């Protein structure tokens, strides 16, 4: 039996009285793009940050290739590449200095790192910005640099928090292809998004996260079956499983009435 590349058990995280995660269970297998789909504040980012070793869980554990991210963070971090929703980089450095730093700290081989840096920089069209301070780059270019930094060491597990948010169509396409190639080579991707179309097209399995827990997971057909909505879109399935459908309908009704009232006056 193949072991999971990313495995979380009873993951709980509280900020004061607010419970961001409430006993989340998760398994991402090699060769899988797992999409964490959920509304704002559902716990997607917290799950990814704990897996990346940036935040300590209040309870529970998460392992990457069997290495516990809290007890053995060095091994876990060596095996992951993380891209945050808002790129976290040393903004006063140039992309070159940032990659110098990263490649050195990770102890990468000179030949392979230079080859990979060149390929990725050309793919994302950032070569010309290599000596420009990151602080002065556009959000999209910063995102591309963060993606290159996460891919530079070819980690088995990629943790991507809304990675397509600031990317143009060309770069989005390239990233999607890179992710496909990554999982074909036996890697895994844990991917957060709230954009249904992306999740539907890109992910081999989707976990719907709501209130700090996975409330349903599987491929689209499994989720439809779970929601009892044959032929439904992912959006409809999501609304049903998160019990938001009726609430959204009543809000839309209220807005419509309010708009028409304003026009009548």
């Amino acid at each position: 039996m193949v072991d999971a590349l990313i495995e979380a058990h009873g993951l709980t995280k509280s900020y004061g009285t607010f419970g961001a995660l409430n006993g989340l269970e998760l398994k991402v297998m090699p060769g899988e793009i797992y999409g964490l789909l959920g509304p704002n504040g559902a716990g997607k980012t917290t799950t990814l940050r704990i897996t990346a070793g940036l935040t300590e869980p209040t309870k529970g554990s998460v392992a990457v290739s069997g290495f516990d991210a809290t007890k053995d963070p060095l091994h876990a971090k060596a095996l992951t590449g993380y891209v945050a929703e808002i790129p976290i980089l040393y903004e006063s450095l140039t992309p070159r200095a940032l990659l110098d730093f990263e490649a050195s700290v990770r102890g990468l081989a000179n030949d392979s790192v230079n080859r990979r840096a060149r390929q990725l920089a050309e793919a994302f069209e950032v070569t010309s910005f290599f000596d420009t301070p990151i602080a002065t780059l556009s959000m999209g270019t910063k995102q591309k640099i963060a993606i290159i930094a996460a891919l530079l060491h070819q980690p088995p597990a990629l943790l991507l928090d809304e990675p397509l948010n600031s990317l143009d169509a060309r770069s989005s396409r390239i990233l999607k292809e890179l992710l496909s190639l990554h999982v074909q080579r036996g890697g895994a991707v844990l991917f957060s998004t709230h954009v249904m179309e992306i999740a539907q097209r890109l992910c081999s399995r989707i976990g719907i996260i709501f209130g700090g827990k996975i409330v349903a997971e599987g491929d689209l057909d499994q989720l439809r079956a779970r929601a009892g909505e044959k032929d439904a879109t992912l959006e409809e399935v999501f609304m049903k499983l998160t019990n938001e459908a009726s609430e959204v309908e009543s809000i839309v009704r209220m807005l419509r009435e309010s708009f028409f009232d304003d026009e009548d006056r």
Partner: protein
Amino acid sequence: MRTADAWRLSAIPYSEMAFRSILQNSSNMWWGSFGRGSAEVSGREDLVKRALRIARFDKFIITAFVVVATSAPFLPQTLGASYGISASVTLSLAVSFALIILYGVQTLSSFVTSGPSPVLSTLPLTRNEVSLVNLLSFVRTSDYLVVGSVVCQVFFVSIVTGSALSALFMLLAGAMNSVMGVGVALWLSSIFYRNILGSKQGRRAGVLRLAMLLAWGVVVLGIGVLFAAAGYLIPLVQSVLASPDALTGSILSLFYPFSLGISVGAVAHGFASSLIEWTALGATVGYLLVAVAVSRWSMSSVASFPEGASRITGSERTKDTSVSLHKPVTAYALKDLRAASANLPSAFLFALPAFETLVILLIRAFLPTLRASTLLVAMVLGGMFSLVLPLVLVSSEGTGFDFAKTMPLRMRTIVFSKALIATAVFLPAIAVVLTESLLKPFTSSFSILILLASILAVAAASLLEVRLFLGFAPSGRVTFALQEFGRMAAGAGVVLLPATIYAVAYIPTLNHALAAGAMVAVASAELLAISEFVRRS
């Protein structure tokens, strides 16, 4: 839009600008901790909260400091000193000028990089209204500082001289000083953040930036000297200025802010009665014209920010993507140096070795031999300067620290790399003392061991400080500053202990060899113990 409305509205862009500047230059968050507390929540979230808190109180605290600093030079006269007021006015103006620049550069960085408030441009306001709000936001950056310093100067001049005319002249001089200080801050920010930091990092930009960092470091550390040596400087400068035929006085009277100081003194005792005073008055008229020009330039520059500063990208395009590899400790240290060099407020790091060397040399400049006692004092003093660096280096991590935290980095790699920089900064001073020893003999050849012990102690103290700054969560908002001073005090204790052991061993035995040996032994023990503590963490 009425000016009163614009003034009220300008509070919002000003607050946003102060917040963004503090967040951008997180090395200024010296009263916020950087411990595990930030790892528990999000590093960014912690920094944002701290920046908001500092932005709220920063101006008041700096103003209180400026008021004390600009008042201090007048103390000798208020305590009954009989000499004239020119040197005190000069020193007070110099201090307030430098402090306005220091604070202005910190606050204006975000003003020049992204404009006071890009949101304003999206509101239904005319270009002139947006310009007015921007201008008033700019005024808010230093309003309390300027009013505080000028009121103090006018108050003390009127008390000391009893002359309404000299108080009025002081008001003019203070206003000129403030206008020029704010103008220089705006100019420095524009050059550094827009033209140098915001452009391609070519060789020319690198040289320019280094030159600017060094000059900046000299200004920052120079203020420290002004404070430390004020009691010595004021009578000295006053005696030079009081001598009507002195060539030095005549030359000084041409230079800012001596001309203003001499002019206020001249007005206080009637009117100009010497060549120096006439020269100073003439120069003051010239500086008045400069101040008017600076104020016009500042206003037109600020008014041109409504669109928000554009993103600047390098005009030269590179095709090279080569990456250089180093050992992790070296890579971290290089990263720290690169990050610090992109940040004016932490730039004094680069001037620190020269400054330490100067202080150490000055302490023993007039002694024919290198006595162990003066060497000891000089080394301890130099070591203390180095202990500021761990705080600067840890704080300058800023929000980017989250990036480092995603990598397989041990805490000890970060600690050793930062301690390496702090110790390296101390080494030029040692090299200069060793060179000096070729010209001036040590009173005891064993004194050379004092240098060795000092390096070991500074390395140990830096390791301890960095580990403490990185390792422990703050226990409460009010205690932030006290905790950080406590951590620095622990480092100072590590530097002082070997020197104390030297004294304890030498006084009863009068044996240099024994005392120096004991000092090296204690410093080595400190370094070993603290290294082990760091290694195990």
